[in-house]
């Protein structure tokens, strides 16, 4: 119930392609869904976040799609660049509290030049 399942574990995409990372959850009480980006040797940093009252959110080349009925959300990266190579984590929380962040296992993304 408390898990967030993230897939794939790793992903290799050519430059300019659109990598898609998927996350699924069970607990319908989750009401905040952030994505964090982690470069090698660095800590994760917030990339983009969505709440279940919207189906899509865009920030630059990054888009979150949210499907409330399917209890799934995904990250799309448009026109991907080698600099987007990183590990991406989805997460979910409820009750407006970031103490309760439940993390996906992470996706290692490599963008080939």
């Amino acid at each position: 119930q408390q898990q967030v399942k993230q897939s794939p574990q790793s992903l290799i995409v050519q430059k300019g392609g659109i990598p898609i990372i998927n996350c699924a959850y069970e607990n319908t009480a989750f009401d905040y869904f952030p994505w964090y980006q982690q470069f090698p040797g660095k800590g994760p940093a917030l990339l983009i976040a969505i709440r279940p009252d919207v189906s899509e959110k865009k920030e630059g080349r990054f888009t979150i799609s949210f499907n409330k009925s399917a209890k799934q959300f995904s990250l799309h990266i448009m026109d991907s660049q080698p600099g987007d190579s990183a590990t991406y984590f989805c997460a979910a929380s409820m009750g407006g509290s970031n103490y309760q962040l439940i993390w996906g296992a992470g996706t290692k993304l490599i963008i080939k030049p």
Partner: protein
Amino acid sequence: DVKVTQSSRYLVKRTGEKVFLECVQDMDHENMFWYRQDPGLGLRLIYFSYDVKMKEKGDIPEGYSVSREKKERFSLILESASTNQTSMYLCASSLGGRGGNSPLHFGNGTRLTVT
């Protein structure tokens, strides 16, 4: 820009040693966190603190303790290090009290090896 500084990038300790991991943040954040990151397991919360001298257990507190004597500093203590505590340890901070979804700001991690 928020800065979260972890005192060591790499640490090698022996089984049974007492280990201190230090974390300092410079943005007057109320909340501080210690996470452990292992491949395929994501980030797992060890302890968090929402105020000075306050602490709460996360998902995997066994074998760890914490100390927060000052607002800007949050220490993770391994009372008697074991090989299964070999991992990357991440400290984070965030603005706000017990509520709110303010972003977590992470340090660059301490890679601890226990031999």
